[in-house]
């Protein structure tokens, strides 16, 4: 008599994420979406203040080749109390550099639940969904949600009315798929380097 074949276990799909804080609120972002992590201090030398605009969350920009990276104040974006940002995430395939207070840790998520449809306002553009990490629910941000095409257009118009970049193909300073490589690693919290390493595996799309 032959025994039935053991049930095959499907590999669990997972995605490396970075947990970070803005004004005390915890968020997650796919590590593959983060091109660089820099301390605010290292960015300060290359950042340029832009004229006041209706996009209050953006006060500075960084010139990267032909493109402007806009520095988004995460607290203002999420309507949180102002906080002291210590780090900047340069987000891959966007023109956004996001100011965050700090990195909590790096970890893996195996399940991403779509944002419940009860959330029916701006937040639908902010988040890819929700995940549970260590029994805590964390929103997973959408990198392209920090600046809409209209906001980018408005910012470009303020910075240089004659300049109308498309925003495509801005991934020009890749650091081998690892957002930490080439960044100011010494500036990162110890938990970041103690517990976890970021492999170069791509995200689940």
């Amino acid at each position, binding site marked *: 008599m032959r025994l039935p074949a053991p049930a095959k276990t499907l590999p669990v799909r997972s995605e490396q994420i970075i947990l970070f804080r803005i004004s005390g609120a915890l968020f997650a972002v796919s590590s593959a979406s983060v091109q660089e992590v820099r301390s605010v201090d290292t960015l300060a030398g290359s950042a340029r203040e832009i004229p006041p605009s209706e996009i209050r969350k953006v006060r500075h920009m960084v010139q990267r080749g032909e493109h402007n990276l806009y520095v988004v104040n995460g607290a203002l974006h999420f309507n949180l109390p102002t906080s002291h940002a210590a780090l900047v995430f340069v987000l891959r395939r966007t023109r956004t550099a996001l100011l965050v207070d700090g990195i909590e840790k790096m970890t893996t998520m195996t399940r991403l639940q779509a944002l419940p449809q*009860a*959330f029916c306002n701006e937040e639908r553009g902010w988040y890819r969904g929700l995940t549970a990490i260590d029994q805590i629910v964390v929103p997973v941000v959408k990198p392209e949600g920090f600046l809409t095409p209209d906001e980018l257009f408005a910012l470009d118009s303020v910075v240089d009315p004659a300049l109308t970049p498309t925003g495509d193909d801005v991934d020009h300073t890749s650091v081998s798929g690892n957002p930490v490589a080439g960044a100011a690693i010494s500036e990162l919290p110890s938990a970041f380097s103690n517990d976890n390493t970021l492999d170069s595996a791509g995200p689940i799309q």
Partner: protein
Amino acid sequence: MTSMPESESFVLLRLSERRFAVAASDIAELVAPSRVFRFPHQTKEVEGVVVRRGRIVPVIDVAARLLGRRLTARRFYLIAQRRYTTGTEWIALPVTGDCELIFADMIPASEADLPHVAGWLSHDGDVIEVLNLNALTPGPNPAPLRAPATEAPQQEAFS
């Protein structure tokens, strides 16, 4: 020969001093309050989310709309199904007292009633509003008033 209306089952819920009813077919369970996780968003009716049976469920305080004030205390969460054009999802409604399953005949709402009123029923000498959760709770518009309850609840972005 005329047929008598068949009694339907409803769950009576208490919000502060008032009672409301929801069709029992829309209710999944009644659970003790658990930790509410909050994160930034712009939908003022949603307090946060709870985790229930592995699902992340939004907590919606309907008292603000029904009573004009938010609940300060809560005893249970009524887990209900909210129907959207794309499917059905669970929502958690904070309530302040025990819930009760009753059978009653519902008088359908008239045009004069507010959109969140599905109808009225009489119970224990009270006239009680039957709530239309699709109109009462936030979601992308337009939402169907009632739909078959056969859709799979919740969606996952990936799994």
